[in-house]
């Protein structure tokens, strides 16, 4: 039988709210990773999950252990700082690898499959060529 240790109500309220908010944000991020069409749009879901969801849960864990042990517990600041520092770096690295792969595979003109960036670039190229042909 799992029994959560009792803490005061003024600490249990923010802990519960932060846990619910973190779980909801993680659910939204997972749904975005599952449902969004292109790779560049799918990049946003895990970033939101890692930063906001983990941040909320880590703050909730910090508050809970502070109330449980009756002394300030700041071990979770380590994980929070590490995650907040490394999430944008890893996102940028994955994004650069994907852009490099797409450019090398010559996917510049493949439309929706390669994302909106290349579609917009193709549109401007078409407009420019049409302008030059009309001149």
């Amino acid at each position, binding site marked *: 039988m*799992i029994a*959560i*240790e009792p803490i005061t109500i003024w600490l249990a309220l923010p802990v519960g709210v932060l*846990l619910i908010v*973190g779980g909801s944000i*993680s659910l939204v991020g997972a749904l975005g990773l599952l449902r969004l069409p292109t790779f560049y749009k799918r990049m946003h879901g895990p970033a939101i999950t890692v930063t906001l*969801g*983990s941040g909320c*849960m*880590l703050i*909730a*864990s910090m508050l*809970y*252990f502070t109330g*449980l042990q009756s002394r300030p517990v700041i*071990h*979770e600041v*380590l*994980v929070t700082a*590490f*995650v907040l520092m*490394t999430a944008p*770096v*890893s996102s940028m*690295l*994955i994004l*650069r*690898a994907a852009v*490099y*792969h797409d450019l090398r595979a010559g996917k510049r003109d493949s439309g929706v499959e390669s994302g909106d960036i290349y579609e917009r670039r193709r549109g401007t190229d078409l407009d420019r060529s049409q302008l030059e042909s009309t001149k």
Partner: protein
Amino acid sequence: MQLAIVLGMIFGSMIYFDAALLIAMVGFVSTVAMSKFLMRGAIIE
């Protein structure tokens, strides 16, 4: 990582916190290694 944090809150133990820290670090290192391999073709140049 979030599962480890919530399990640590449920059981009231600090061991799960170390598991969360390890999962975060291994995830970052593996992401960097995979991206370097996809971009350059070699992880350590």
